[in-house]
């Protein structure tokens, strides 16, 4: 195995890799499909925010034919002294799931001198148990235990495409113009300490959630401990994965009511200061205090702006910056009010849509849009839009 190749799957002796990057997301709030051709224009405009060491995108609505199956999209790298990684993964999968279909992901040749194999399986758990939990555990098992295989994503009707390169290279490599989806997020990366590796690019994805992140999580050690308690294994050498798992825990695994789960998750990740909580009306204060105390180790500290895309419980895009507001984030809605955008910089949005309906969400507050419209602009008071639902 060449040294060069080792960056396809997780390197064994590298440290966690903070990065500062460009992020964007697009959601068609009517659920109509957006062509990858349009997305490429946005992706490639913020080149100043990347250094060619990683880029990627998530697309939702990509597999209408298999939309009820979990799409397990993998990076595979064969090591000479064992069975091909694909066979090892397949053998493992057959024990636990039904495979509806599997295929090699088409990639454009000639962009990278060397690249790993990208493969996808459409699968469903055999029976019993919570299928989401089974798939989550399968993805974590592959990343943790199966050498030469790395799970890019494992959600339904969605997939993550990413790798080591400039954003335009990754877009071309995965032939983005052939893809269509109603929701996209994309990321160009500027990792700082070590060379990136294919799995280390964003988005980070678990089940139907995909996270892209600009910044650094200074609470990483504390968050990892919390996730370990909750049964999540952090193995990807980057701080961003903790946000993905925390989000999965808070909106799905916790079983919180779907109507308020995003609010709880957003507040846990970036809670109001205590002094703000003290000033809240008593019924809201009670919730804010309880969330902050109970999920105190879920708080993501340090500079960040993140875009979270998820299909749970329905397709939703969330933009969120840290409460000290140390990373940029702009939100916008198209003039026809069909499309919701999030981006590090306004010019990326204006590259495809000259809408005048744009705003900066408040520090530490989430902007949330879903199929049907914008739920929160991120400029409201905490729980303002759901306060009537709280007892």
């Amino acid at each position, binding site marked *: 195995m060449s040294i060069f190749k080792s960056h396809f799957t997780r390197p064994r002796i590298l440290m966690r890799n903070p990065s500062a990057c460009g992020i964007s997301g697009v959601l068609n709030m009517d659920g109509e499909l957006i062509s990858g051709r349009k997305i490429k224009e946005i992706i490639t*405009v*913020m080149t*100043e925010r990347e250094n060619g060491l990683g880029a990627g995108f998530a697309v939702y609505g990509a597999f209408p034919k298999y939309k009820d199956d979990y799409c397990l999209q993998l990076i595979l790298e064969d090591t000479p002294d064992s069975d091909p990684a694909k066979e090892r993964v397949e053998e493992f999968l057959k024990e636990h799931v039904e495979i509806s279909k599997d295929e090699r992901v088409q990639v454009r040749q000639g962009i990278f001198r060397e690249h790993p194999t990208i493969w996808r399986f459409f699968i469903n758990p055999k029976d019993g148990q919570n299928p989401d939990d089974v798939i989550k555990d399968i993805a974590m098992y592959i990343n943790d235990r199966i050498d030469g295989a790395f799970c890019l994503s494992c959600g339904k009707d969605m997939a993550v495409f990413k790798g080591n390169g400039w954003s335009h290279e990754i877009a071309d490599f995965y032939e983005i113009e052939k893809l269509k989806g109603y929701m996209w997020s994309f990321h160009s990366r500027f990792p700082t300490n070590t060379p990136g590796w294919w799995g280390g690019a964003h988005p980070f994805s678990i089940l139907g959630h995909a996270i892209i992140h600009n910044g650094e999580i200074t609470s990483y050690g504390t968050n990892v401990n919390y996730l370990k308690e909750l049964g999540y294994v952090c193995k990807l050498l980057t701080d961003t994965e903790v946000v993905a798992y925390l989000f999965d825990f808070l909106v799905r695994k916790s079983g919180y009511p779907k109507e308020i789960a995003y609010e709880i998750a957003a507040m846990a990740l970036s809670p109001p200061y205590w*002094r*703000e909580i003290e*000033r809240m009306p008593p019924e809201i204060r009670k919730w804010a205090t309880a969330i902050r105390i109970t999920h105190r180790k879920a708080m993501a500290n340090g500079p960040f702006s993140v875009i979270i895309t998820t299909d749970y419980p329905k397709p939703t895009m969330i933009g969120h910056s840290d409460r000290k*507001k140390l990373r*940029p984030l*702009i939100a916008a809605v198209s003039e026809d009010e069909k499309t919701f955008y999030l981006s590090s*910089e*306004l*010019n*990326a949005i*204006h*590259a495809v849509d000259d809408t*005048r309906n*744009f*705003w*900066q969400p*408040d*520090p530490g507050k989430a902007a949330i849009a879903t199929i049907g419209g914008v739920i929160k602009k991120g400029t409201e008071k905490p729980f303002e839009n759901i306060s009537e639902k709280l007892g």
Partner: protein
Amino acid sequence: MSLQEVKKITIDAKPKGNNLHYKELNKQIRDALRDGHNWIVVENVSGQRYIGAGIKEKVTIEIFGDVGLDLGAFSEGLTIIVHGNSEYLLGNTLNEGELVVYGDSWDITGMGARGGRIFVMGNGGSRVGIHMKEFKDKKPAIIYGGKVKQYCGEYMAGGLILVLGLNFKDAVIDTKKPIGRDNIDPLKVKDIEGEIVQSDLGGGMHGGAIYIRGEVPDEYLGVYATKKGFTEEDKIIITPIVERFCELFNVPPELVWGKKFTKIVPVSHRPFGKQYVTTPI
């Protein structure tokens, strides 16, 4: 002083549909300066950074489109007019000159500015005017027509910040055209409803003054910042800036003066003097 002859040139920042890299764009601007142009129009700007950075010549750069971060950073005497929006760090360490944005400009505007004036029609983000300073006759000023977010004027050491709380949303006459003075209907400029500043206003400030048009809740004051009565003297100080703002953005001055300003000043020039001790141990 004789009126300077206007020598205008137009640069396309997106020739043949491709965005110029900022390095190339700034080179073209500098070349134009060298050729004696004193009014440089840049069209189709899309997020290019550092435009006009470090330029000392007292010339005008007029920009159409959204500029990237660090517009006019370190410059000394430039006039920059943006018919569009600006990313963060507008006028970073500005020394002198006038930066005008007919749109929004978000975080960290005028960081460490040592002189000059920054006029933004719309809204700002966090840390507007952070660590501005003044020395003798060099007094920077930042004026936002709209509202700003937290940490406005954080550890400000001098200069002025004005936040006016005006809403231009319905005042743009032709939304298809770039926004400029002529495209603003003065009668449709309105007051923003609700709060126009956020928490930690003037946190740790130890010089200068912040003028907020309207009331400021006490809990928004940052550490060692305090409210002080707005006097006639204050009005005399801010009048030239307000008048210039009104001229640039076609706002009736009586609209601005129609609401009382709140003045925020430092409690002390050495706010954290007692926090540290130097006794040998």
